[in-house]
């Protein structure tokens, strides 16, 4: 397993009062993404736990693109990954953030 946490400074969060949301399943080729509020309004913390070591460079590129595309200030994201491809990771992140924002 590989564990690392990335920290991004972002534009401050727009809204308060979101509840934690979980998306996805820890199955082979898949991952779960937990999105929770973070006190620091202009920070995004992303914690990655992955059973497929050696792809940190790709994670960093993908996650920084994700942060840049989305307003994720004041958000903490925790990932349990079981070897998902970047395609699946990207989709799951979008789903999780969407669920978090909409409260559904």
């Amino acid at each position, binding site marked *: 397993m590989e564990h690392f946490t990335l920290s991004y400074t972002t534009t401050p969060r727009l809204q308060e009062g979101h509840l934690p949301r979980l998306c996805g399943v820890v199955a082979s080729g898949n991952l779960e993404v937990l999105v929770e509020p973070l006190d620091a309004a202009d920070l995004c913390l992303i914690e990655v736990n992955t059973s*497929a070591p050696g792809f940190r460079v790709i994670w960093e590129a*993908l996650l920084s693109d994700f942060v840049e595309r989305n307003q994720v200030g004041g958000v903490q994201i925790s990932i349990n990954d079981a070897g998902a*491809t970047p*395609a699946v990771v990207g*989709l799951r992140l979008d789903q999780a953030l969407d669920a978090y924002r909409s409260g559904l």
Partner: protein
Amino acid sequence: MNQSSENPVMWDALSRNSTARLERGAAFARGREVATEDITRLLEAVIEPGDRVCIEGNNQKQADFLSRSLLKTDPSRVRDLHLLQSVLALPEHLDIIERGQVSRIDFSFSGPQAGRLAALVEQGRITIGAIHTYLELFSRYFIDLTPRVALIAAQAADREGNLYTGPNTEDTPAIVEATAFKSGIVIAQVNEVVDKLPRVDIPADWVSYFVKAPTPHHIEPLFTRDPAHITEIQILMAMIAIKGLYAEYGITRLNHGIGFDTAAIELLLPTYAAELGLKGKICTHWALNPHPTLIPAIEAGFVKSVHSFGSEVGMERYISARPDIFFVGNDGSMRSNRAFSQAAGHYACDLFIGSTLQIDLEGNSSTATKGRISGFGGAPNMGSDARGRRHASPAWLRAGREGSRNRAMPRGRKLVAQIVETNREQMQPAFVERLDAWELAESAGMELPPVMIYGDDITHIITEEGISNLLLCETAEEREQAIRGVAGYTAVGMGRDRRMVENLRDRGIVRYPEDLGINKRDANRDLLAARNIKDLVHASGGLYSPPRQFRNW
């Protein structure tokens, strides 16, 4: 013309030789009929050293009994053969090479035997004439690779030797016509001998011998895809294909290369495409095997016609019940024809779309990997621009305009799309700087790297990241960035020039789901018109009868 009396020119040498062979074969046949136990001796009698022998077998129907019988022949009599085959599918096809009875092969595809073939080539035990696409190989049967002997497979023969090939007619007519009309010997294995055939697919005149095989020839259900295995990413790519390509160009006539990516497109027609108001506007006429995953689209009224290369196990009753859609004889059963379907895919379709293993920075696409000599089957034919085409269609004209590059004479262009996820299993990238095909060419001594579809034939690339329109690229550099711009987080994708890609995006050359108005969160399996094999059976009203391995009931 002056002829020396010592060396008169013989103009009928082949037919004289054939007559001699048939005389030798008469000992083992009654008329055209050969008893099952006599087949090996017959083969020894009518095959001569150095013969070009065509063994019928695509990835579906195989002349398996005749192949096994060939393996039992005396290697001192049956030797030095030049084999012509669509597909090297069975172990027996390579066993005969290992026995030292074959000196040369020309073929199209070898999927299951690709590794073993590569090993034999490396050991110098076989020479490959060339790897062809199917239509190309059939074409050479009429020019410089005419079979001397053809070993074919049919469903049934009558007492005279007329043959019924039925839904799995496939390659048989092309092989038999070339052989029979150049004085060749045609030997057919049949599943049964009957008094009256449902219809005559091959007349007895064209057949030299037929033999009842002890077990029916095996047919592989290669075109059945269980919807249960379709992933969200494949569904997302299918949405991009439907909205960004099919709807965009109004694709009514097309071929799908086999795979889960295209199966997802087929299963999204009655749902996603219907919601977009596309019924009747896309996907009406097909060159396609009878994919079970097309059933919901047919039932929903999307499809007007399907011509097939072969049949598909379990689909027979459904096909017979839909004679307006499929090509069905007066007897009620389908007739397929690989040669005509390949020609149809080339000239009468506006789009080919299929998957691949690797694409390079020019857009060259290949499934070749080191250590496996597999060939590409029909893809090179389907996936190439038909430059001889003259009739127009809106899609063809538009693609021609987009790819025109300041040419004085306008022309049309066929759409050729590759649809592939940026990473395969074990994070193998689908986008590479240099195809493995180069390495394979070197190790196997090929003149050219084996490319399935050339970059200058490809018009669109679809990945989970988006769709690139290579027609609109003005320079090689733009083309490279258009490819990098959908190559996701592969090394190729991460090496993109961001500013150039943004520019391409502004010009509509690269489009991402949000540019197409596609919400990625909609990409889920609820969008599939059928989510498993049983759903397909129900969609067919119980007419589709899946083979055992696909059932859990």
